[in-house]
């Protein structure tokens, strides 16, 4: 059993090869982005210390000869001194570094979506059969007018006099969350772009600029402006359907990001508009935003640059006083507020932030919706909820708690083969998702995974229609912010209160 040099840290997984089944085709050697496998003259050898359980090798082994198992050499169980804590102490004592990883937190916090139940019709109010009757999922994101002025033409037909603020039209209330070219591969972005176009929804560039190949997908793209202002210029701002100002991210509230220089090759350099090989540093704050007034200034700088034709979204992480913060953002002129819960994913973030900062999206959403309604400004902006939406059930519950739409990031990557190994930061992703190594990126076929993303979102949309039908409503609009259709189980009074829902049975 190989262990890495003189580290205390043992291999987490064992890559076991059944040499009776193995035909030495060496596909595992090709497929593993981590260099776990090598050929030892007459058989495949495995360096277990390199295995991250990303699942690529056994998925593509034609003989089913590989099993990845947890290393049975255990640390003595201790509920206080958990394995991860001990290993991090070793890692940090060996390197002196801040521990970082990809994806969302792996900590076991309470998942409120799993403690919320939906209502359904029985006897007194009829349910609707979505297979036979129309069921509207179309969603418009953007500022809605407080009142509508209507005129009538000579035949008495009403004509809308009010000029509607710009909207993003979604055929189903999903968007792909912001993931930059750099954090993920161009092929992964292309898969989302193809799916977004086919579905009539949008993807988001993240803070990585817009690659030339994605320019034709402008009608299905939100472009992002963040603190590093990478790839941001006048034409970029005008190339999508909306502009998003990123303040924070659920996985790493309050901190910025570094795309390491070794990932800045020629193509990423061109897209981000920075030199090859330099770190792409996004500072923690925007250095021109220190207040709600400053945020308003940037929102309107973007609106001026886009001639008031694009809705402007502001993305924030869900943190303690999120309701007051979002109220300020709406008053600053945002047309959309994107709220990212603490379990949201990332390409890389310090574990101390990922595992310990922020609040659950469910609670944030309920409080924000409540606050904006109380203040009479809920119509001023749409809300996108994010932070590990894992199923259509999570999506429906988020909408009933007050979201207009939900964003999916990790789920979209799982479609592309991601096994949530959390090593995105290393750039060795065997699935070609969070890597820039050409031999790995090449294997992710945008057409194939674009279609699978289309399938997933279509399936989830059908599931939402089923649930709406069961609740006796024929439009997603009718469920939005309708907390009366939700009940809690195994929740305390304080939790129910924060969610604004009743306990089951009441």
């Amino acid at each position, binding site marked *: 059993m190989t262990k890495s040099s003189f580290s205390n840290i043992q291999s987490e997984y064992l890559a076991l090869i059944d040499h009776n089944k193995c035909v030495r085709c060496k596909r595992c050697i090709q497929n593993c982005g981590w260099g776990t496998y090598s050929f030892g003259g007459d058989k495949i050898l495995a360096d277990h210390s390199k295995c991250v359980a990303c699942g690529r090798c056994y998925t593509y082994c034609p003989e089913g000869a590989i099993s990845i198992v947890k290393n049975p050499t255990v640390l003595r169980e201790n509920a206080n001194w958990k394995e991860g804590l001990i290993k991090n102490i070793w*890692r940090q004592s060996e390197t002196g570094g801040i521990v970082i990883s990809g994806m969302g937190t792996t900590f076991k916090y309470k998942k409120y979506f799993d403690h919320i139940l939906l209502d359904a019709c029985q006897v007194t109010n009829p349910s609707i059969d979505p297979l036979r009757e129309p069921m509207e999922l179309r969603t418009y994101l953007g500022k809605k007018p407080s009142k509508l002025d209507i005129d009538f033409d000579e035949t008495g037909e009403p004509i809308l006099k009010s000029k509607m603020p710009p909207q993003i039209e979604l055929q189903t209330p999903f968007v792909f969350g912001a993931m930059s070219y750099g954090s993920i591969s161009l092929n992964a972005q292309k898969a989302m772009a193809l799916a977004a176009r086919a579905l009539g929804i949008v993807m988001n560039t993240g803070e990585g600029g817009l690659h030339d190949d994605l320019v034709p997908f402008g009608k299905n793209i939100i472009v992002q402006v963040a603190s590093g*202002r990478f790839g941001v210029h006048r034409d970029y701002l005008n190339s999508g359907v909306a502009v998003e100002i990123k303040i924070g991210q659920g996985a790493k509230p309050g901190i910025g990001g570094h795309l*390491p220089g070794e990932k800045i090759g020629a193509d990423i350099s061109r897209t981000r508009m920075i030199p090859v090989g330099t*770190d792409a540093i996004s500072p923690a704050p925007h250095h021109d935003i220190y207040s709600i007034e400053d945020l308003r200034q940037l929102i309107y700088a973007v609106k001026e640059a886009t001639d008031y034709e694009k809705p402007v979204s502001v993305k924030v992480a869900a943190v303690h006083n999120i309701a007051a913060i979002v109220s300020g953002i709406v008053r600053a002129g945002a047309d959309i507020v994107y709220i990212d819960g603490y379990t949201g994913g990332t390409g890389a973030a310090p574990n101390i932030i990922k595992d310990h900062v922020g609040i659950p999206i469910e609670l944030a959403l309920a409080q924000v919706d409540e606050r904006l309604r109380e203040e009479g400004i809920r119509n001023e902006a749409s809300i996108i909820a994010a932070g590990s939406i894992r199923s259509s059930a999570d999506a429906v519950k988020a909408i009933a708690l007050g979201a207009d739409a939900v964003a999916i990031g990790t789920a979209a990557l799982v479609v592309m083969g991601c096994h949530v190994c959390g090593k995105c930061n290393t750039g060795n992703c065997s699935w070609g998702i969070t890597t820039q190594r050409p031999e790995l990126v090449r294997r992710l076929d945008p057409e194939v995974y674009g279609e699978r993303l289309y399938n997933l979102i279509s399936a989830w949309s059908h599931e939402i229609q089923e649930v709406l039908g069961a609740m006796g409503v024929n439009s997603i609009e009718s469920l939005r912010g309708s907390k009366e259709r939700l009940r809690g189980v195994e929740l305390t009074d304080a939790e129910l209160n924060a969610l604004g829902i009743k306990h089951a049975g009441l």
Partner: protein
Amino acid sequence: MITIDAAGMHYKELNRLIREGIEKGIRKFFLENVNGQYYIGDGIKGDDVVININGIPGNDLGAFMDGPTLIANNNVQDNVGNTMNAGKILIKGDAGDVVGYGMRGGKIYILGNAGYRVGIHMKGYNEQLPIIIIGGKVGSFFAEYMAGGIIVLLGLNDSDEFDSEYFASGMHGGTIYLRKKIDFSKYSKDVELYEADENDMNFLKKYLIDYTDSFNISSEEITAKPFYKIVPSSARPYAHLYTSA
């Protein structure tokens, strides 16, 4: 050519008039009685467009601008040249805070002083080389996270002090030229100080002449003193900060 009297005009109206004017083919604009209007020149395009501003323009002058020239005949406020891509901004007075944030190309020449956070995250890309030249002095957080381009600090008003703290912290690209030697022990560990050599001065010359010509001042006084240059110690200041879980 068009003259717009901006007195009492909302910025939205003023900027709409400018955008429509450019679309109609007008290339020279004279703005009179400007009094704090935001976003003048925001997101406009056209290398031959010149906007002459009388009065005090408000924040975000020339934000996202891509080619035109703005001439401010007085002081200006904050966020000049925010994320600017190309063009030129001449300021005949002082500038406020956050000059050239994320600026990728073009030139900002300031005759007087500038406030805090000048040149933060300024970046160069290929042939695009953003340049800021400041006649006077600057406030703290100067060139923080600077990733590319050139900033020249002339200190013409002869104050011996750079009050600035957190000078060039996190700088990982580009070059700063100073016309005064500074007590470097006070400043960032991310950068190194050298005396500017002949190559540097030859490189700088055309920009300094452009600067002095723009403001009709003598270039001799400026080049009479030696220049110093500050460059980052590394293009990757945080490369060793992390360890993978």
